């Protein structure tokens, strides 16, 4: 039974993804014959998990699992009077599919490990683990080795999601909400590390480094560091996706060899580099938020 768990996860993720991705949302997604549209910035099918709608007479009701409608240009139009909604887009479900695939892959890589490696599978697993542990040890130091699984997870998720545009999907990382989530996670990790190493006093003191009048600049850089991380990753992947879409659109029926060669740079190189830079910046920010030097212990005196 335990061996079926990865299969169950994959089946669940694929089912949920197909519920949203292939759900019909009006006339969106149909290609028009009289003028080809570039459907790269096209609509994502959206299901609202729950919506708070205000009636005309002021009463509010909650609706679950309503599909949003798209007008003929592909813009989402909601019903009138939606006060608050929590949407489920294809980008999110595509990310679940990527999580399921990556999880299953690494689950299979990590089974039947021996002390002395005899197969290629274990060599690959050891190389991957050694790569991430080396990255964390170089960037953050010995005491932060617990972050290695998280760094490896973000790297692999980002790389797999960006590379899924090679398979024809619109990659989930071409959607800023996904990457903004990872950037917000970085912000949360930085604050947690500040409070964990220095206490609240140390965290407050770190905002006054190196001189007290720099407080607004330090506050601003707390926000802009994850924000620039987000924008860098999202902008590069989106630029690659758009350029590949334009190339496929231009070579209408002759898109045989040139897009494959060009996608070596725009899709593959960009995806790997951006994943690496994103995780390197996570290590830099989290280890830079170490406040233990600002809080002197009484036992040192």
């Amino acid at each position: 039974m335990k061996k079926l768990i990865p299969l169950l996860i994959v089946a669940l993720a694929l089912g949920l993804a197909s519920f949203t991705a292939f759900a019909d949302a009006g006339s969106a997604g149909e290609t028009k014959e009289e003028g080809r549209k570039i459907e790269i910035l096209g609509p994502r099918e959206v299901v609202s998990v729950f919506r708070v709608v205000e009636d005309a007479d002021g009463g509010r009701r909650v609706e679950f699992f309503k599909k949003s409608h798209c007008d003929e240009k592909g813009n989402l139009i909601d019903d009138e009077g939606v006060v608050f909604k929590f949407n489920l887009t294809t980008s999110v479900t595509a990310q679940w599919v990527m999580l399921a695939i990556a999880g299953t892959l690494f689950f299979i890589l990590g089974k039947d490990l021996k002390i002395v490696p005899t197969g290629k599978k274990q060599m690959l697993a050891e190389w991957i683990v050694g790569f991430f542990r080396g990255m964390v040890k170089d960037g953050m130091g010995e005491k932060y080795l617990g972050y290695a699984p998280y760094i490896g997870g973000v790297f692999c998720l980002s790389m797999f999601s960006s590379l899924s545009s090679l398979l024809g999907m619109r990659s989930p990382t071409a959607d800023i909400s996904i990457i903004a989530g990872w950037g917000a996670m970085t912000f949360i990790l930085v604050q947690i590390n500040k409070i964990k190493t220095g206490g609240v006093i140390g965290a407050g003191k770190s905002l006054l480094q190196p001189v007290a009048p720099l407080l607004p600049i330090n506050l601003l850089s707390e926000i802009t560091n994850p924000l620039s991380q987000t924008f860098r990753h999202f902008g590069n992947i989106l630029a690659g996706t758009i350029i590949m879409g334009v190339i496929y659109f231009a070579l209408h029926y002759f898109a045989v060899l040139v897009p494959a060669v060009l996608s070596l740079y725009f899709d593959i190189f960009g995806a790997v580099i951006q994943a690496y830079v994103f995780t390197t910046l996570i290590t830099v920010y989290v280890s830079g938020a170490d406040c233990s030097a600002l809080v002197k212990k009484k036992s040192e005196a």
Partner: protein
Amino acid sequence: MDFQVTAQGAVLAAEVMGAGIAMLANLGPGLGEGISCSKAVEAVGRQPEAAGVITRTLIIGDAICETSGIYAFIFALLIMFTHPFSGQINITA
């Protein structure tokens, strides 16, 4: 040959021109990354066994320098595809 410039048309024209001018900001990263690459090539020439570390540092530095160009790109996309000022066009006489 008289044509009327409607307010809608003027706003759309300004949008497109603004997006084009915003993309001029990509001059900076191109120049900067070329200069950094030349320094990296010099460093590899001076110490060829450090070529792997130098290449990795170059790539990471390039990705950081690219950010300002990406900001300009996102700004241009935002202007072109979400029409931020289309709700403020007042048709007066």
